[in-house]
């Protein structure tokens, strides 16, 4: 039997195992919406802005590992998704975006709601397709899912003209796909893995630096096996939090601009660095000229272009993080152990002395609510078991520092693009993927307003997300930079004319709570989390002047960290450097 393109598309999604899609209708997509109406297998979540659809699909993908699916109309529908596509692209998140397009005979005529969807998305997709013939549709969808979720994952756009969704053909969904031009390497080179293993066993000041690629590949167990077998210190990037348990004694915290003192100094002073699924981003390395001057670097990444891009690497290994780590563990275990069993004890002693500085200390006696306190209590109240999404700013960094993630795929944030507005819609996707889980969105009063309309979606689909708004009446992270680097000139970073968030939440049909006394923080969080079936908007009125520490100013080295005034005094003498 012949089906229309629209019916074929929906059948493809079903056969691909898609249970939810996130979208917003419009003229060019109406045949597709009609096909959705006629079935129940693929459920559609109607967002309130297409940016929300892309972030929600992204959040869904980050927790499930399956591509998030977005459906939008042509023109403004697709341009509204661009921030979401770029966010997914920067963090290597699998996503398939289906965009309606004007009919093929109108393409290029500046037709109503026509935009060159492939053109405007090209720089921020892994790949994109324009389907000109309904007979190509099913194969294209298959390829799109395959490309999105293999190799280094990423977003794929399929632009579908309206006539293609009306035309008919036989439906055949290909079972497998192979493409002569696309064949990601998954197995690491055995010779290189052996070199890496030897180097690791000879190290006296080793560090294992793991990023989001480990979570994406599902390699957290292999990472644990390696770190525990070697008893080496492990640090995670912002994207990698949870891929090594934060409560494990071998974990030395997050690294980078707001990473811990011990992680950054260990990166600086190490002699062998194993980097897995991380890409030496500038927020991680600081000044490249001062980056880790004494180390030999092993870099494992599925994307060859990540290797050697920012730093020179001694042992490059192209491959899937999970596979390479598994191979590395077995090679390391089969090699003669280094007879000098004491060789790293001095290194651990050094790391522990850095640790004793307690770089994340904050003032616990303040009569204002310290944002760190809220996150620490949130961690305790949720027993570390919530899914936490965040927006971008100081609150994001505090969440990363104070919510101790022991599991991967629990910490959902826009690391690469740094997209304000991500947190709430991403939390929707997370909750839809995990209908019984506690899902918390840590945000700031500036960020939350960027996608606040999604409170309405949360109402429609009963998504009882807990919003933790750290309300400092400032774009805090901007204010912090202005305090440090612009002589306290707070140019346009004050959030004037804020809404009453409690009333705002309630007008959307949710519950709102305002907390301004530090003594009430814990109890209010307990109440918030106990309201299992309600979306609760917690408006915490926090200390306006609090800053995120430690901090490495952009363009400085790892050994040039600023610490706050509340730690255990000045750093001690350094042995190296």
């Amino acid at each position: 039997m012949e089906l229309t393109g629209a019916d074929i598309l929906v059948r493809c999604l079903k056969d691909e195992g898609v249970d939810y899609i996130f979208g917003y209708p419009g003229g060019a997509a109406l045949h597709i919406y009609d096909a959705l109406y006629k079935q129940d297998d693929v459920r559609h979540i109607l967002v309130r802005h297409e940016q929300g659809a892309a972030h929600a699909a992204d959040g869904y993908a980050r927790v499930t590992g399956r591509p998030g699916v977005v459906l939008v109309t042509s023109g403004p529908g697709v341009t509204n998704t661009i921030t979401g596509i770029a966010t997914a692209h920067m963090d290597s998140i699998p996503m398939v975006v289906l965009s309606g397009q004007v009919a093929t005979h109108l393409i290029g005529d500046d037709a109503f709601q026509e935009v060159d969807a492939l053109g405007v998305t090209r720089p921020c997709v892994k790949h994109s397709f324009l389907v000109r013939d309904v007979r190509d549709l099913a194969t294209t969808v298959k390829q799109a899912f395959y490309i999105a979720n293999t190799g280094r994952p990423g977003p794929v756009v399929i632009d579908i003209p309206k006539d293609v969704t009306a035309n008919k053909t036989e439906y055949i969904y290909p079972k497998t796909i192979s493409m002569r031009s696309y064949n990601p390497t998954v197995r690491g080179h055995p010779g290189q893995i052996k070199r890496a293993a030897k180097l690791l066993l000879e190290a006296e000041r080793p560090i294992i630096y793991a990023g989001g690629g480990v979570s994406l590949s599902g390699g957290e167990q292999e990472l644990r096996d390696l770190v525990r077998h070697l008893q080496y210190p492990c640090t995670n990037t912002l994207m990698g939090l949870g891929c090594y348990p934060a409560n494990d004694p071998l974990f030395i915290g997050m690294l980078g601009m707001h990473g811990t003192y011990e992680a950054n100094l260990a990166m600086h002073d190490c002699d062998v660095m194993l980097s897995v699924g991380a890409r030496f981003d500038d927020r991680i390395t600081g000044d490249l000229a001062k980056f880790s001057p004494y180390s030999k670097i092993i870099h494992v990444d599925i994307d060859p272009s990540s290797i050697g891009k920012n730093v020179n690497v001694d042992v490059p290994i192209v491959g899937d993080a999970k596979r390479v780590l598994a191979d590395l563990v077995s090679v390391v275990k089969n090699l003669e152990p280094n007879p000098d069993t004491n060789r790293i004890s001095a290194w651990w002693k050094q790391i522990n002395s850095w640790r004793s500085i307690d770089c994340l200390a904050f003032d616990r006696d303040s009569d204002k609510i310290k944002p760190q306190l809220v996150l620490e209590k949130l961690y305790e109240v949720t027993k570390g078991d919530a899914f936490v999404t965040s927006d971008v700013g100081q609150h994001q960094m505090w969440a990363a520092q104070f919510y101790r993630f022991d599991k991967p795929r629990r910490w959902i944030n826009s690391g690469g693009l740094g997209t304000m507005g991500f947190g709430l819609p991403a939390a929707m996707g997370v909750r839809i993927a995990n209908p019984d889980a506690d899902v918390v969105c840590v945000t700031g009063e500036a960020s939350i307003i960027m996608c606040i309309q999604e409170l309405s979606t949360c109402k429609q689909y009963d998504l009882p997300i807990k919003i933790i708004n750290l309300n400092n009446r400032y774009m805090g992270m901007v204010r912090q930079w202005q305090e440090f680097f612009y002589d306290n000139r707070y140019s346009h970073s004050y959030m004037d004319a804020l809404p009453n968030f409690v009333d705002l939440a309630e007008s959307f049909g949710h519950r709102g709570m305002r907390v301004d006394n530090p003594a009430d923080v814990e109890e209010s969080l307990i109440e918030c989390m106990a309201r299992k079936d309600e979306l609760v908007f917690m408006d915490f009125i926090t200390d306006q002047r609090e800053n995120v520490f430690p901090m490495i100013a952009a363009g400085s080295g790892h050994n040039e960290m600023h610490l706050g005034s509340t730690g255990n005094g000045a750093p001690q003498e350094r042995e190296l450097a």
Partner: protein
Amino acid sequence: MDSRHIISVLLENEPGALARVAGLFSARGFNIETLTVAPTEDPTLSRMTIVTVGSEGVVEQITKQLNKLIEVIKLVDLTEDKHIERELMLIKVRAVGEQRDEIKRLVEFFRGRVIDVTQSVYTVELTGASSKLDGFIEQVKLTEILELVRTGVSGIARGESALSAPKSRSNNK
């Protein structure tokens, strides 16, 4: 140290592939001296030749980023080994009086051809490595250059090695 590289790319002959390559170069700030592209004997494949100038690290990134494009099947940096490069130039010059003979001699010397003649103008066709075309332009400045068009470089490896697609046909179509 920056040097000149000729990168030969075999890619799917699909609309949009050229835009992706061009977009990649502009987005990442890579330099393109010349770029040529045309289908091969297999109409599903295009062959692209890109001439770029960059340091070793930059050229490594260029090849890796090109390889990352889904349409790219294979590529080779021809300058890493023995190769032949050719470029075609059509050049229209003012040719009057004694200049007419002088230009003709120059064209012969460079093994070019005068392919169109008027009372005051010669149009010359010249093929060779880019440096040879540059040499001709330098010399022909004895007269006025009215118009100049170059195709950009095409290149191929010497000897047996060939840039070809794996035999199995994809099920792209």
